[in-house]
């Protein structure tokens, strides 16, 4: 169970090195928005080289590839999957066909690389109105899909609304994704809080989401920036106690597993 997923720009070697020591539960190496078009090749090669040679310990290794409609997506897959990428974060997911095509690419690359078939997971980044509407359907397209993640910045742009600190404009989408993920039996990750220097805002937004939006999920997980890791884990630690006190287990035989999930989350 992951509490925190740390975004790392894929063409910044010093930030990739930081991923070795920062206490996030998962690392997302970004090949999309944080990389200039003319540097896509360099970022892809750098991330693949880092994945294949550095020891990131128990952290889950995720790569955000470029959009399926771009000429980079297949090259991204061919480079990072053999190098040790465990999960692919697919941006702007809207269409089942894209997931099926990616599923096929992964089958081919896994087979060619001697990687167990089906072992590379998919996290679907939902960041458009169409994606929110189709979230449940998208989550069930492939067995590789293990989570939905909300990308609120692009979603706000798609909706034509202002992204505010209070986040009321994304309240429906946050809740909708929780329901869709729960119904599809996959995990759900909250949107990044993008103002890395507003610790108070990040704290309040995280507590709000934890209390009022994402309580339907068994644990609260969030995509984050570097400065927010310890803050997020602090909120999680407090909530862990709350969960142990207040959330009854539905079935007696699930008690052990449920307690373990909270402790690890």
């Amino acid at each position, binding site marked *: 169970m992951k509490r925190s997923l740390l975004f790392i720009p894929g063409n910044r070697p010093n930030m990739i090195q930081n991923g070795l020591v920062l206490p996030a539960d998962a690392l997302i190496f970004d090949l999309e928005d944080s990389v200039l078009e003319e540097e896509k090749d*360099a970022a892809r090669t750098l991330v693949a080289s880092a994945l294949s040679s550095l020891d990131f310990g128990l952290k889950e290794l995720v790569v955000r590839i470029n959009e399926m409609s771009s000429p980079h997506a297949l090259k991204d897959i061919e480079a990072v999957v053999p190098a040790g990428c465990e999960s692919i974060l697919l941006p702007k997911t809207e269409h089942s066909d894209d997931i099926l095509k990616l599923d096929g690419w992964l089958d081919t690359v896994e087979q060619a690389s001697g990687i167990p078939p089906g072992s590379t997971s998919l996290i679907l980044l939902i960041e458009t109105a169409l994606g929110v509407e189709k979230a449940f359907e998208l989550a069930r397209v492939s067995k590789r899909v293990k989570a939905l993640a909300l990308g609120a910045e692009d979603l706000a742009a798609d909706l034509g609304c202002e992204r505010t600190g209070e986040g009321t404009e994304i309240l429906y989408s946050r809740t909708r994704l929780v329901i869709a993920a729960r119904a599809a039996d996959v995990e759900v990750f909250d949107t990044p809080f993008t103002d890395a220097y507003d610790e108070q805002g990040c704290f309040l937004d995280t507590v709000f989401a934890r209390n009022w939006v994402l309580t339907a999920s068994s644990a609260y997980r969030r995509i984050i920036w570097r400065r927010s890791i310890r803050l997020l884990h602090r909120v999680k630690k407090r909530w862990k106690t709350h969960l142990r006190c207040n959330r009854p287990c539905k079935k007696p035989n699930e008690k052990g597993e449920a307690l373990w999930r909270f402790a690890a989350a």
Partner: protein
Amino acid sequence: MKLLNHAKAGTLESGDVFITVTPGEELLIHLDSPVKEQFGDAIMDLVQKVLEEQEVTSGTIELSDQGALDCTIRARLITALERASKGDVS
């Protein structure tokens, strides 16, 4: 791999290495690094190894190292070589 054009990769930021590749008749490697005294031989070995893997036997390779890890040097060199071989002028 045949080098067709001048190409570059990387930056001068800390932890990175800036590499330029220029086609030429003979193989020349120039390394500038703040840790050249301690790790210069290891970096040159790595560069030679990557050049062999990429089957590059001639050209001028200039590296301005800013304390990059081996994986970064390898990645930046491969990127510069691929760009040079595709004829990208950058």
